[in-house]
Protein backbone atom coordinates (compact mmCIF):
# COMPACT_ATOMS: atom_id res chain seq x y z
CA UNK A 1 0.00 0.00 0.00
CA UNK A 2 2.81 2.37 0.92
CA UNK A 3 4.37 1.87 -2.49
CA UNK A 4 1.14 2.69 -4.33
CA UNK A 5 0.75 5.78 -2.21
CA UNK A 6 4.22 6.98 -3.15
CA UNK A 7 3.51 6.37 -6.82
CA UNK A 8 0.20 8.19 -6.60
CA UNK A 9 1.73 11.16 -4.79
CA UNK A 10 4.49 11.34 -7.39
CA UNK A 11 1.87 11.30 -10.08
CA UNK A 12 -0.10 14.15 -8.50
CA UNK A 13 3.03 16.25 -8.05
CA UNK A 14 3.94 15.62 -11.69
CA UNK A 15 0.46 16.69 -12.77
CA UNK A 16 0.66 19.88 -10.73
CA UNK A 17 4.14 20.62 -12.07
CA UNK A 18 3.12 19.92 -15.69
CA UNK A 19 -0.02 22.07 -15.37
CA UNK A 20 2.04 24.96 -14.05
CA UNK A 21 4.14 24.79 -17.22
CA UNK A 22 1.01 24.31 -19.31
CA UNK A 23 -0.16 27.69 -18.08
CA UNK A 24 2.96 29.36 -19.46
CA UNK A 25 3.59 27.26 -22.55
CA UNK A 26 0.09 26.13 -23.40
CA UNK A 27 -2.10 29.06 -22.47
CA UNK A 28 0.32 31.81 -23.31
CA UNK A 29 2.57 30.24 -25.95
CA UNK A 30 5.85 30.83 -24.10
CA UNK A 31 8.18 27.84 -24.32
CA UNK A 32 10.21 27.37 -21.15
CA UNK A 33 13.15 25.01 -20.87
CA UNK A 34 13.99 26.02 -17.32
CA UNK A 35 10.81 25.25 -15.45
CA UNK A 36 12.50 22.77 -13.10
CA UNK A 37 14.39 25.71 -11.56
CA UNK A 38 11.11 26.96 -10.10
CA UNK A 39 10.28 23.50 -8.80
CA UNK A 40 13.67 23.70 -7.12
CA UNK A 41 13.07 27.16 -5.68
CA UNK A 42 9.84 25.92 -4.11
CA UNK A 43 11.49 22.74 -2.87
CA UNK A 44 14.45 24.52 -1.26
CA UNK A 45 12.24 27.22 0.28
CA UNK A 46 9.87 24.69 1.77
CA UNK A 47 12.62 22.31 2.94
CA UNK A 48 14.53 25.09 4.71
CA UNK A 49 11.38 26.26 6.42
CA UNK A 50 10.21 22.84 7.63
CA UNK A 51 13.73 22.08 8.83
CA UNK A 52 13.52 25.21 10.92
CA UNK A 53 10.37 23.85 12.52
CA UNK A 54 7.48 25.16 10.43
CA UNK A 55 4.73 22.73 9.42
CA UNK A 56 4.63 21.86 5.71
CA UNK A 57 1.26 23.55 5.18
CA UNK A 58 2.71 26.87 6.31
CA UNK A 59 5.46 26.68 3.69
CA UNK A 60 3.18 26.50 0.67
CA UNK A 61 2.59 30.23 0.49
CA UNK A 62 6.27 31.23 0.94
CA UNK A 63 7.30 28.61 -1.66
CA UNK A 64 4.79 30.03 -4.14
CA UNK A 65 5.65 33.64 -3.37
CA UNK A 66 9.40 33.17 -3.76
CA UNK A 67 9.09 31.05 -6.92
CA UNK A 68 6.51 33.47 -8.34
CA UNK A 69 8.62 36.53 -7.53
CA UNK A 70 11.69 35.07 -9.21
CA UNK A 71 9.35 34.01 -12.03
CA UNK A 72 8.24 37.63 -12.33
CA UNK A 73 11.86 38.76 -12.80
CA UNK A 74 12.63 35.99 -15.27
CA UNK A 75 9.37 36.73 -17.08
CA UNK A 76 10.07 40.46 -17.22
CA UNK A 77 13.55 39.80 -18.60
CA UNK A 78 12.16 37.26 -21.09
CA UNK A 79 9.62 39.70 -22.50
CA UNK A 80 12.34 40.91 -24.82
CA UNK A 81 12.87 37.50 -26.41
CA UNK A 82 10.60 34.96 -28.06
CA UNK A 83 10.42 31.53 -29.59
CA UNK A 84 13.84 29.82 -29.79
CA UNK A 85 15.52 32.67 -27.97
CA UNK A 86 13.07 32.40 -25.11
CA UNK A 87 13.77 28.67 -24.93
CA UNK A 88 17.52 29.36 -24.72
CA UNK A 89 17.04 32.10 -22.12
CA UNK A 90 14.90 29.92 -19.89
CA UNK A 91 17.38 27.08 -20.35
CA UNK A 92 19.99 29.50 -19.00
CA UNK A 93 17.80 30.06 -15.93
CA UNK A 94 17.87 26.33 -15.26
CA UNK A 95 21.69 26.16 -15.40
CA UNK A 96 22.00 29.37 -13.40
CA UNK A 97 19.80 27.93 -10.67
CA UNK A 98 21.75 24.67 -10.28
CA UNK A 99 25.01 26.62 -10.58
CA UNK A 100 24.08 28.97 -7.75
CA UNK A 101 22.70 26.21 -5.51
CA UNK A 102 25.91 24.20 -5.83
CA UNK A 103 27.90 27.07 -4.33
CA UNK A 104 25.59 27.81 -1.40
CA UNK A 105 26.77 26.08 1.75
CA UNK A 106 23.67 27.33 3.47
CA UNK A 107 21.58 25.27 1.04
CA UNK A 108 23.79 22.22 1.34
CA UNK A 109 25.84 22.94 -1.76
CA UNK A 110 26.65 19.86 -3.82
CA UNK A 111 25.40 17.61 -1.03
CA UNK A 112 21.89 19.00 -1.08
CA UNK A 113 19.52 18.96 1.88
CA UNK A 114 18.93 15.65 3.58
CA UNK A 115 16.69 14.73 6.46
CA UNK A 116 13.76 16.87 5.41
CA UNK A 117 11.15 16.23 8.10
CA UNK A 118 8.30 13.94 7.28
CA UNK A 119 5.10 15.87 6.64
CA UNK A 120 2.31 16.03 9.18
CA UNK A 121 -0.05 13.16 8.63
CA UNK A 122 2.73 11.08 7.08
CA UNK A 123 2.37 9.64 3.59
CA UNK A 124 -1.41 9.83 3.68
CA UNK A 125 -1.31 13.47 4.72
CA UNK A 126 1.06 14.31 1.88
CA UNK A 127 -1.04 12.38 -0.61
CA UNK A 128 -4.16 14.27 0.46
CA UNK A 129 -2.39 17.62 0.32
CA UNK A 130 -1.07 16.82 -3.17
CA UNK A 131 -4.53 15.75 -4.26
CA UNK A 132 -6.23 18.89 -2.95
CA UNK A 133 -3.63 21.29 -4.31
CA UNK A 134 -3.53 19.64 -7.73
CA UNK A 135 -7.30 19.71 -8.02
CA UNK A 136 -7.33 23.31 -6.86
CA UNK A 137 -4.73 24.29 -9.43
CA UNK A 138 -6.62 22.52 -12.20
CA UNK A 139 -9.80 24.34 -11.17
CA UNK A 140 -7.95 27.66 -11.39
CA UNK A 141 -6.71 26.67 -14.85
CA UNK A 142 -10.20 25.73 -16.02
CA UNK A 143 -11.50 28.98 -14.61
CA UNK A 144 -8.88 30.98 -16.51
CA UNK A 145 -9.50 29.05 -19.71
CA UNK A 146 -13.25 29.59 -19.56
CA UNK A 147 -13.11 33.12 -18.28
CA UNK A 148 -12.88 36.19 -20.37
CA UNK A 149 -9.12 36.07 -19.91
CA UNK A 150 -9.05 32.72 -21.71
CA UNK A 151 -9.86 34.46 -25.00
CA UNK A 152 -6.90 36.75 -24.60
CA UNK A 153 -4.56 33.90 -23.73
CA UNK A 154 -5.77 32.03 -26.82
CA UNK A 155 -5.10 35.03 -29.00
CA UNK A 156 -1.63 35.59 -27.51
CA UNK A 157 -0.74 31.92 -27.89
CA UNK A 158 -1.85 32.04 -31.49
CA UNK A 159 -0.16 35.26 -32.58
CA UNK A 160 1.15 37.71 -30.04
CA UNK A 161 2.05 40.36 -32.62
CA UNK A 162 -1.50 40.54 -33.86
CA UNK A 163 -2.80 40.54 -30.30
CA UNK A 164 -0.69 43.57 -29.58
CA UNK A 165 -1.71 45.25 -32.84
CA UNK A 166 -5.40 45.05 -32.01
CA UNK A 167 -4.75 46.66 -28.65
CA UNK A 168 -4.15 43.86 -26.16
CA UNK A 169 -1.57 44.51 -23.46
CA UNK A 170 0.40 41.35 -24.27
CA UNK A 171 3.17 41.99 -21.73
CA UNK A 172 0.74 42.10 -18.84
CA UNK A 173 -0.79 38.74 -19.71
CA UNK A 174 2.55 37.09 -20.36
CA UNK A 175 3.81 38.26 -16.99
CA UNK A 176 0.63 37.05 -15.31
CA UNK A 177 1.10 33.61 -16.85
CA UNK A 178 4.75 33.56 -15.79
CA UNK A 179 3.98 34.53 -12.20
CA UNK A 180 1.13 32.07 -11.78
CA UNK A 181 2.95 29.27 -13.61
CA UNK A 182 6.18 29.63 -11.64
CA UNK A 183 4.26 29.95 -8.37
CA UNK A 184 2.51 26.69 -9.27
CA UNK A 185 5.87 25.05 -9.87
CA UNK A 186 7.02 26.35 -6.47
CA UNK A 187 4.02 24.71 -4.87
CA UNK A 188 4.80 21.43 -6.63
CA UNK A 189 8.38 21.82 -5.37
CA UNK A 190 7.24 22.14 -1.76
CA UNK A 191 5.34 18.86 -2.08
CA UNK A 192 8.20 17.20 -3.95
CA UNK A 193 10.78 18.06 -1.27
CA UNK A 194 8.66 16.32 1.36
CA UNK A 195 7.89 13.41 -0.87
CA UNK A 196 11.53 12.50 -1.53
CA UNK A 197 12.87 14.11 1.68
CA UNK A 198 16.23 14.65 0.07
CA UNK A 199 16.90 17.34 -2.50
CA UNK A 200 20.05 18.35 -4.31
CA UNK A 201 20.97 20.55 -7.26
CA UNK A 202 20.69 17.57 -9.62
CA UNK A 203 17.02 17.06 -8.76
CA UNK A 204 16.14 20.26 -10.64
CA UNK A 205 18.38 20.23 -13.67
CA UNK A 206 17.83 20.58 -17.37
CA UNK A 207 16.66 16.97 -17.70
CA UNK A 208 13.73 17.63 -15.35
CA UNK A 209 12.81 20.70 -17.38
CA UNK A 210 12.79 18.65 -20.58
CA UNK A 211 10.78 15.92 -18.87
CA UNK A 212 8.03 18.30 -17.82
CA UNK A 213 8.01 19.97 -21.24
CA UNK A 214 7.55 16.56 -22.85
CA UNK A 215 4.56 15.96 -20.57
CA UNK A 216 2.99 19.18 -21.82
CA UNK A 217 3.73 18.43 -25.47
CA UNK A 218 2.60 14.80 -25.35
CA UNK A 219 -0.53 15.90 -23.51
CA UNK A 220 -1.29 18.60 -26.02
CA UNK A 221 -0.13 22.16 -25.49
CA UNK A 222 -2.88 24.08 -23.75
CA UNK A 223 -5.12 21.07 -23.13
CA UNK A 224 -5.83 20.67 -19.42
CA UNK A 225 -7.03 17.06 -19.62
CA UNK A 226 -4.44 15.98 -22.13
CA UNK A 227 -1.61 17.27 -19.96
CA UNK A 228 -3.12 15.69 -16.84
CA UNK A 229 -3.20 12.29 -18.51
CA UNK A 230 0.25 12.64 -20.08
CA UNK A 231 1.80 13.77 -16.78
CA UNK A 232 0.15 10.89 -14.94
CA UNK A 233 1.33 8.30 -17.47
CA UNK A 234 4.82 9.64 -17.97
CA UNK A 235 5.45 9.99 -14.23
CA UNK A 236 4.48 6.42 -13.34
CA UNK A 237 5.97 4.81 -16.41
CA UNK A 238 9.54 4.60 -15.10
CA UNK A 239 8.28 3.27 -11.77
CA UNK A 240 6.30 0.42 -13.24
CA UNK A 241 8.94 -0.44 -15.78
CA UNK A 242 12.09 -0.20 -13.72
CA UNK A 243 14.04 -1.49 -16.65
CA UNK A 244 13.50 1.68 -18.71
CA UNK A 245 14.54 3.99 -15.89
CA UNK A 246 18.06 4.25 -17.25
CA UNK A 247 16.68 4.99 -20.67
CA UNK A 248 14.07 7.44 -19.39
CA UNK A 249 15.37 10.33 -21.46
CA UNK A 250 15.53 8.19 -24.56
CA UNK A 251 11.91 7.18 -24.09
CA UNK A 252 10.86 10.79 -23.46
CA UNK A 253 12.73 11.90 -26.54
CA UNK A 254 11.06 9.23 -28.60
CA UNK A 255 7.65 10.16 -27.23
CA UNK A 256 8.27 13.80 -28.07
CA UNK A 257 9.21 12.83 -31.58
CA UNK A 258 6.20 10.54 -31.98
CA UNK A 259 3.87 13.19 -30.58
CA UNK A 260 5.17 15.79 -33.00
CA UNK A 261 4.95 13.40 -35.93
CA UNK A 262 1.60 11.72 -35.26
CA UNK A 263 -0.17 13.84 -32.66
CA UNK A 264 0.88 17.43 -33.18
CA UNK A 265 -1.94 18.51 -30.89
CA UNK A 266 -1.02 15.88 -28.30
CA UNK A 267 -3.46 13.68 -26.41
CA UNK A 268 -5.75 16.69 -26.05
CA UNK A 269 -5.98 16.83 -29.84
CA UNK A 270 -7.21 13.24 -29.97
CA UNK A 271 -10.60 14.12 -28.52
CA UNK A 272 -10.90 16.80 -31.16
CA UNK A 273 -10.18 14.23 -33.86
CA UNK A 274 -12.80 11.88 -32.41
CA UNK A 275 -15.32 14.65 -32.25
CA UNK A 276 -14.63 15.59 -35.85
CA UNK A 277 -14.99 11.97 -36.95
CA UNK A 278 -18.28 11.69 -35.17
CA UNK A 279 -19.49 14.88 -36.80
CA UNK A 280 -18.71 13.57 -40.23
CA UNK A 281 -20.39 10.22 -39.96
Amino acid sequence: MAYEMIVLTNMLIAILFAQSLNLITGFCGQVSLGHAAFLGIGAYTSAMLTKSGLPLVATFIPAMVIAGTIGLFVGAASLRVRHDFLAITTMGVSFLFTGIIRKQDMLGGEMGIAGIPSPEGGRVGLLLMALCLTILFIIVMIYIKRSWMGYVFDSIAEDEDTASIIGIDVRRFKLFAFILGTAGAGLAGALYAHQVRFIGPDSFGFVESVTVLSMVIVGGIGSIWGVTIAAALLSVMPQFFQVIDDYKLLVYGMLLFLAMRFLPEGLGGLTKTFRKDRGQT
Partner: protein
Amino acid sequence: MLDVNNITCRYGPVTALHDADFTLEGGEVLALVGTNGAGKSTLVMSIAGHIIPEHGNIVLDGEDITNIPPYQRASRGIGLVPEGRRLFPDLTVKENLITGGYVLPRTSESQRLEHVFEIFPRLYERANQLAGSLSGGEQQMLAFGRAIMLRPRVMLIDEISLGLMPSVIIECYAVLENLRSQNIAVILVDQNSDAALAFADKAIWLETGYVKWQGKAKHCPLLKESIVS
Protein backbone atom coordinates in the same frame (compact mmCIF):
# COMPACT_ATOMS: atom_id res chain seq x y z
CA MET B 1 -11.30 65.45 -32.92
CA LEU B 2 -7.98 63.95 -34.06
CA ASP B 3 -5.08 66.34 -34.46
CA VAL B 4 -1.83 65.05 -35.84
CA ASN B 5 0.75 67.77 -35.46
CA ASN B 6 3.98 67.62 -37.46
CA ILE B 7 4.90 64.04 -36.66
CA THR B 8 8.18 62.58 -37.86
CA CYS B 9 8.85 58.86 -37.50
CA ARG B 10 12.13 57.00 -37.77
CA TYR B 11 13.17 53.37 -38.05
CA GLY B 12 16.74 53.56 -36.77
CA PRO B 13 18.65 55.90 -39.08
CA VAL B 14 15.88 55.94 -41.72
CA THR B 15 13.22 58.60 -41.49
CA ALA B 16 10.03 57.01 -42.80
CA LEU B 17 7.74 59.99 -42.36
CA HIS B 18 8.49 63.72 -42.30
CA ASP B 19 6.21 66.29 -40.74
CA ALA B 20 2.77 64.83 -41.34
CA ASP B 21 0.19 67.32 -40.12
CA PHE B 22 -3.60 67.16 -40.35
CA THR B 23 -6.85 67.46 -38.46
CA LEU B 24 -9.80 65.12 -38.76
CA GLU B 25 -13.33 65.63 -37.45
CA GLY B 26 -15.94 62.96 -36.69
CA GLY B 27 -17.51 61.58 -39.86
CA GLU B 28 -14.63 62.72 -42.03
CA VAL B 29 -12.65 60.32 -44.18
CA LEU B 30 -8.97 60.86 -44.90
CA ALA B 31 -7.33 58.89 -47.71
CA LEU B 32 -3.61 58.23 -47.55
CA VAL B 33 -2.26 57.58 -51.01
CA GLY B 34 1.17 56.97 -52.48
CA THR B 35 3.41 54.16 -53.63
CA ASN B 36 4.95 51.42 -51.48
CA GLY B 37 7.36 52.78 -48.92
CA ALA B 38 5.73 56.20 -48.99
CA GLY B 39 5.05 56.17 -45.26
CA LYS B 40 1.31 55.47 -45.29
CA SER B 41 1.46 52.49 -42.95
CA THR B 42 3.96 54.31 -40.74
CA LEU B 43 1.48 57.13 -40.28
CA VAL B 44 -1.34 54.69 -39.50
CA MET B 45 0.79 52.71 -37.04
CA SER B 46 1.97 55.85 -35.28
CA ILE B 47 -1.63 56.88 -34.66
CA ALA B 48 -2.38 53.37 -33.35
CA GLY B 49 0.62 53.67 -31.05
CA HIS B 50 2.91 51.02 -32.46
CA ILE B 51 5.47 53.57 -33.61
CA ILE B 52 6.34 56.48 -31.35
CA PRO B 53 7.04 59.62 -33.37
CA GLU B 54 10.33 61.36 -32.89
CA HIS B 55 8.83 64.82 -33.17
CA GLY B 56 5.34 66.18 -33.11
CA ASN B 57 2.30 65.01 -31.22
CA ILE B 58 -1.05 63.31 -31.67
CA VAL B 59 -4.07 64.73 -29.89
CA LEU B 60 -7.43 62.96 -29.55
CA ASP B 61 -10.30 65.08 -28.20
CA GLY B 62 -7.87 67.50 -26.62
CA GLU B 63 -5.82 64.77 -24.92
CA ASP B 64 -2.21 64.27 -25.99
CA ILE B 65 -1.92 60.55 -26.74
CA THR B 66 1.53 60.64 -28.36
CA ASN B 67 3.22 58.59 -25.67
CA ILE B 68 0.50 56.27 -24.41
CA PRO B 69 0.68 52.57 -25.30
CA PRO B 70 -1.50 50.97 -28.00
CA TYR B 71 -3.92 49.24 -25.61
CA GLN B 72 -4.74 52.53 -23.92
CA ARG B 73 -5.33 54.13 -27.29
CA ALA B 74 -7.64 51.25 -28.18
CA SER B 75 -9.67 51.90 -25.05
CA ARG B 76 -9.96 55.56 -26.07
CA GLY B 77 -11.53 54.47 -29.35
CA ILE B 78 -8.76 54.11 -31.89
CA GLY B 79 -9.64 51.02 -33.91
CA LEU B 80 -7.28 49.42 -36.40
CA VAL B 81 -7.91 47.13 -39.35
CA PRO B 82 -4.35 46.04 -39.99
CA GLU B 83 -2.76 45.34 -43.34
CA GLY B 84 -3.41 41.74 -44.37
CA ARG B 85 -6.33 41.57 -41.85
CA ARG B 86 -4.30 39.57 -39.31
CA LEU B 87 -7.12 37.55 -37.81
CA PHE B 88 -6.59 34.63 -35.44
CA PRO B 89 -7.36 31.78 -37.87
CA ASP B 90 -7.72 29.10 -35.19
CA LEU B 91 -10.17 31.09 -33.10
CA THR B 92 -13.84 31.34 -34.00
CA VAL B 93 -15.43 34.43 -35.47
CA LYS B 94 -16.98 35.27 -32.12
CA GLU B 95 -13.71 34.78 -30.26
CA ASN B 96 -11.94 37.05 -32.73
CA LEU B 97 -14.54 39.71 -32.10
CA ILE B 98 -14.26 39.36 -28.32
CA THR B 99 -10.48 39.77 -28.38
CA GLY B 100 -10.96 42.86 -30.52
CA GLY B 101 -13.02 44.59 -27.86
CA TYR B 102 -11.13 43.23 -24.91
CA VAL B 103 -9.97 46.57 -23.52
CA LEU B 104 -13.53 47.78 -22.97
CA PRO B 105 -15.64 46.68 -20.00
CA ARG B 106 -17.17 43.26 -20.38
CA THR B 107 -20.61 44.49 -19.36
CA SER B 108 -21.13 46.09 -22.75
CA GLU B 109 -19.73 43.13 -24.66
CA SER B 110 -22.95 41.45 -25.75
CA GLN B 111 -24.33 44.79 -26.86
CA ARG B 112 -21.22 45.49 -28.92
CA LEU B 113 -21.32 41.99 -30.41
CA GLU B 114 -24.93 42.53 -31.39
CA HIS B 115 -24.02 45.81 -33.03
CA VAL B 116 -21.32 44.09 -35.12
CA PHE B 117 -23.69 41.28 -36.09
CA GLU B 118 -26.26 43.88 -37.16
CA ILE B 119 -23.76 45.43 -39.52
CA PHE B 120 -22.47 42.04 -40.71
CA PRO B 121 -25.27 39.45 -40.60
CA ARG B 122 -22.93 37.01 -42.35
CA LEU B 123 -20.62 37.04 -39.33
CA TYR B 124 -23.56 36.14 -37.13
CA GLU B 125 -24.27 33.09 -39.28
CA ARG B 126 -20.63 32.06 -38.99
CA ALA B 127 -20.13 33.08 -35.35
CA ASN B 128 -18.86 29.66 -34.25
CA GLN B 129 -16.82 28.92 -37.34
CA LEU B 130 -13.04 29.24 -37.32
CA ALA B 131 -11.88 32.54 -38.78
CA GLY B 132 -9.41 30.68 -41.01
CA SER B 133 -12.29 28.95 -42.79
CA LEU B 134 -13.90 32.19 -43.97
CA SER B 135 -13.59 33.56 -47.50
CA GLY B 136 -11.35 36.56 -48.13
CA GLY B 137 -14.28 38.94 -48.13
CA GLU B 138 -15.72 37.53 -44.92
CA GLN B 139 -12.31 37.78 -43.29
CA GLN B 140 -12.11 41.45 -44.19
CA MET B 141 -15.58 41.92 -42.68
CA LEU B 142 -14.38 40.17 -39.54
CA ALA B 143 -11.35 42.45 -39.39
CA PHE B 144 -13.71 45.42 -39.60
CA GLY B 145 -16.02 43.88 -37.00
CA ARG B 146 -13.11 43.26 -34.66
CA ALA B 147 -12.20 46.96 -34.80
CA ILE B 148 -15.85 48.03 -34.44
CA MET B 149 -15.97 46.04 -31.18
CA LEU B 150 -13.93 48.91 -29.70
CA ARG B 151 -16.71 51.41 -30.40
CA PRO B 152 -14.15 53.37 -32.34
CA ARG B 153 -14.11 57.13 -32.67
CA VAL B 154 -11.25 56.91 -35.16
CA MET B 155 -10.95 53.94 -37.46
CA LEU B 156 -7.62 53.22 -39.13
CA ILE B 157 -7.82 50.97 -42.16
CA ASP B 158 -4.59 49.81 -43.75
CA GLU B 159 -5.03 48.40 -47.27
CA ILE B 160 -8.77 48.05 -47.42
CA SER B 161 -9.04 46.28 -50.78
CA LEU B 162 -5.83 44.24 -50.92
CA GLY B 163 -6.55 40.85 -52.48
CA LEU B 164 -10.32 41.25 -52.57
CA MET B 165 -12.80 40.83 -55.40
CA PRO B 166 -14.38 44.02 -56.78
CA SER B 167 -17.80 43.12 -55.39
CA VAL B 168 -16.34 42.70 -51.91
CA ILE B 169 -14.50 46.01 -52.22
CA ILE B 170 -17.84 47.68 -52.91
CA GLU B 171 -19.20 46.05 -49.74
CA CYS B 172 -16.22 47.38 -47.77
CA TYR B 173 -16.94 50.90 -48.91
CA ALA B 174 -20.57 50.47 -47.94
CA VAL B 175 -19.35 49.64 -44.43
CA LEU B 176 -17.21 52.77 -44.45
CA GLU B 177 -20.24 54.81 -45.42
CA ASN B 178 -22.01 53.33 -42.42
CA LEU B 179 -19.09 54.30 -40.15
CA ARG B 180 -19.09 57.79 -41.57
CA SER B 181 -22.79 58.15 -40.84
CA GLN B 182 -22.08 57.19 -37.23
CA ASN B 183 -19.74 60.16 -36.98
CA ILE B 184 -16.61 58.00 -36.86
CA ALA B 185 -13.45 59.52 -38.33
CA VAL B 186 -11.83 57.18 -40.85
CA ILE B 187 -8.25 57.07 -42.07
CA LEU B 188 -8.00 54.92 -45.13
CA VAL B 189 -5.06 53.43 -47.01
CA ASP B 190 -5.86 51.80 -50.32
CA GLN B 191 -3.72 50.49 -53.17
CA ASN B 192 -6.57 51.49 -55.40
CA SER B 193 -6.13 55.21 -54.90
CA ASP B 194 -8.98 56.16 -57.22
CA ALA B 195 -11.58 54.39 -55.14
CA ALA B 196 -10.17 55.81 -51.90
CA LEU B 197 -9.96 59.35 -53.24
CA ALA B 198 -13.46 59.20 -54.72
CA PHE B 199 -14.81 58.20 -51.33
CA ALA B 200 -12.72 60.37 -49.00
CA ASP B 201 -13.20 63.98 -47.92
CA LYS B 202 -9.52 64.75 -47.45
CA ALA B 203 -6.38 63.24 -48.87
CA ILE B 204 -2.66 63.16 -48.18
CA TRP B 205 -0.35 62.06 -50.96
CA LEU B 206 2.87 60.72 -49.53
CA GLU B 207 6.07 59.98 -51.38
CA THR B 208 9.23 58.51 -49.79
CA GLY B 209 8.11 59.80 -46.43
CA TYR B 210 7.31 63.35 -47.51
CA VAL B 211 3.87 64.91 -47.86
CA LYS B 212 3.76 65.71 -51.57
CA TRP B 213 0.25 67.06 -51.65
CA GLN B 214 -2.51 67.56 -49.12
CA GLY B 215 -6.02 68.88 -49.45
CA LYS B 216 -9.57 67.97 -50.44
CA ALA B 217 -9.69 64.49 -51.90
CA LYS B 218 -11.58 65.56 -55.00
CA HIS B 219 -8.76 67.94 -55.90
CA CYS B 220 -6.01 65.36 -55.53
CA PRO B 221 -3.78 65.32 -58.61
CA LEU B 222 -3.73 61.52 -58.45
CA LEU B 223 -7.46 61.26 -58.99
CA LYS B 224 -8.43 60.39 -62.52
CA GLU B 225 -10.93 62.83 -63.97
CA SER B 226 -13.29 60.13 -65.08
CA ILE B 227 -14.09 59.26 -61.49
CA VAL B 228 -14.69 62.85 -60.42
CA SER B 229 -17.49 63.17 -62.93
